[in-house]
């Protein structure tokens, strides 16, 4: 059974930031929702409440960066790039301010629906010059995200998981690298964020079906090590399949497609994720099933890629985590 870690970000941020005079914790009225309420209470001198005013917060953070600080902005991801996109561009990205954008509730990890689900943020961030993009897929990555982000000489977009988070890995994020979770030679599976756990759930059933899977987990989306990916693609007989908690346009599916096209790789690619659609509000397992982001969707994708039917059903997949929408580890049901 997977170890579940409660509120890993809360602990990680506090131990990383507390006492570092150049790190400031910014929040826009979602302090407990982003697990920095304890930090606020214990280190009020490093905490700046900027209210529900994200446009100002982004430019203000740019000004703090100009003054030599490294602000960590905490809010839901959507609120950091949709409304204040202009400020993100002009005040943070262009001048390469060392602002750490901690975006909570990536993709469909919230029942908050369209207004709360950042489903196209990676696409947006990938097209912003000077931006670095990191995404967490487990508790260990959440625990190491602050240090990883703060090692970047410029702005960083981070997709951060909160609440009860599974521990899948035992080594911290090494910026610029990718994790090789299995080393098969039939099919390459590339996942990121919460979709990596889904791909791991499908692993034993696929092995039983006789498929040799090579599985990569991406925590660093930009900059990206194309050469490493191409080597992995070259190691599998069939094609590549990507699975992401994001629209398939502009996310890691596009990243893999561009890498393959640039190199003239002729193998097949199947991109799974949100297919040019918004999501709606619901529990994570429901949304992952409904929109085809879960282990079963991956299996069906692999069947499509190989042209074979494996007869794998939900019962053959490693047990899904059952997570309450209402949980003590979250400040609100969002």
């Amino acid at each position, binding site marked *: 059974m997977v170890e579940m870690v409660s509120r890993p970000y809360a602990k990680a941020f506090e131990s990383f930031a507390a006492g570092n005079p150049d790190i400031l914790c910014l929040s826009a009225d979602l302090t407990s929702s982003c697990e920095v309420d304890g930090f606020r209470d214990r280190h009020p001198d490093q905490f700046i409440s900027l209210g529900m005013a994200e*446009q100002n917060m982004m430019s203000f953070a740019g000004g703090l960066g*100009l003054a030599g600080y490294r602000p960590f902005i905490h809010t839901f991801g959507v609120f950091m790039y949709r409304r204040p996109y202009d400020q993100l561009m002009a005040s943070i990205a262009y001048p390469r301010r060392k602002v750490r954008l901690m975006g909570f509730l990536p993709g469909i990890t919230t029942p908050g629906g369209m207004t709360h689900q950042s489903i196209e943020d990676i696409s947006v961030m990938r097209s912003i010059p000077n931006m670095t993009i990191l995404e967490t897929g487990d508790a260990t990555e959440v625990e190491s995200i602050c240090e990883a982000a703060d090692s970047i000489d410029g702005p960083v977009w981070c997709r951060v998981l909160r609440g009860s988070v599974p521990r899948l890995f035992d080594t911290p994020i090494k910026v610029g690298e990718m994790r090789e979770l299995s080393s098969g030679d039939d099919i390459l599976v590339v996942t990121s964020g919460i979709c990596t756990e889904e791909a791991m759930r499908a692993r034993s059933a696929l092995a039983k079906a006789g498929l040799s899977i090579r599985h990569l987990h991406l925590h660093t989306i930009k900059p990206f090590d194309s050469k490493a990916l191409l080597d992995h693609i070259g190691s599998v007989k069939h094609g590549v399949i990507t699975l992401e908690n994001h629209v398939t346009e502009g996310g890691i599916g596009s990243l893999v497609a561009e890498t393959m096209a640039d190199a003239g790789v002729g193998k097949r690619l199947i991109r799974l994720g949100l297919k040019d659609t918004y999501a709606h509000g619901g529990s994570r397992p429901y949304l992952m099933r409904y929109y085809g982001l879960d282990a079963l969707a991956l299996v069906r994708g692999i069947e499509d890629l190989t042209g074979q039917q494996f007869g794998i059903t939900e019962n053959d997949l490693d047990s899904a985590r059952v997570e309450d929408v209402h949980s003590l580890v979250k400040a609100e049901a969002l």
Partner: protein
Amino acid sequence: MRNERTTEEVALGIRRRVFEHSMRNNGGYLSQACSAGEQLAWLYNEELKLGAPTLPMIPKPFEGVPSPSNPDYHTGAGYNGPATPEFDRLFIAPAHYALVAYATLIEVDRMAPEGLEMFNKDGSSVEMIGAEHSPGMEVHNGTLGIGLSTGAGLAYGRKRRGEAGRTWVFMSDGEVQEGQTWEAVQAATHHGIDNLYAIMDVNDQQCDGAMSSVMEVGDIKTKFQNFGAACIEIDGHDLTAMRDAVKEKHDGKPLIILARTNPFHTMSILEERFPRLHYVRFKSEDERARMNVSIAADLGVEPVDYSH
């Protein structure tokens, strides 16, 4: 660094340069020189505590945007001197005032007159809409409304570090139509950022015409005060009023000086173009010639020979 010239002389010099430039180039931001001449002259010639320029008097060409592969990148802030703790900083929030700001740098001996010849030329850093690499600029402000927020963040950070220097933002009144301006004021007040200063050119004009016709903004002094700032309104062409305004006590609050100005002050013929004063491009050779003669007379110079 104090200039030997009076601020009145600097303001007149700014207008003469912007006039000459606009005549030669068949148009320019003339009205902004009329309204903001005293404010920029006062800031640079009297009020701001700035060190000696750290960048060459003749601006270098454009040397690329910030990127990891451009390690030598720097902004144009060096024309205002070093960014050390004791000195003031200035953002020009409405970046389309760049022509007037460049003229000011020349008048206070921070940039060579050759700099203005590079204005809006391909490959030049002296851009039409001041970029952060343009002389005297430190941040991009071409998108209106972000200047005060950035100034508030910088001022907060400097206050935290115990720096004596103030952060000033030169603003335009059209920016009060942007919601971000009000977000910035409430944040600066909430956090007691009283080392933040703004002087706003209230000329009642914007791109489409008179502000009252585009979007009425009402009593902005009361609005700023209600948002928690210290706000004082003056005649923006009265230097004595400006000198007094900055003495206003504003403990725990940003100070915003509303400089009420006339968009054709010292260039009376521009009134013919009211209410489209944002950018004056001459409509005919006849208009250009008449304005040349009229404005030259107002400014006490010979008409500009723009025939070659």
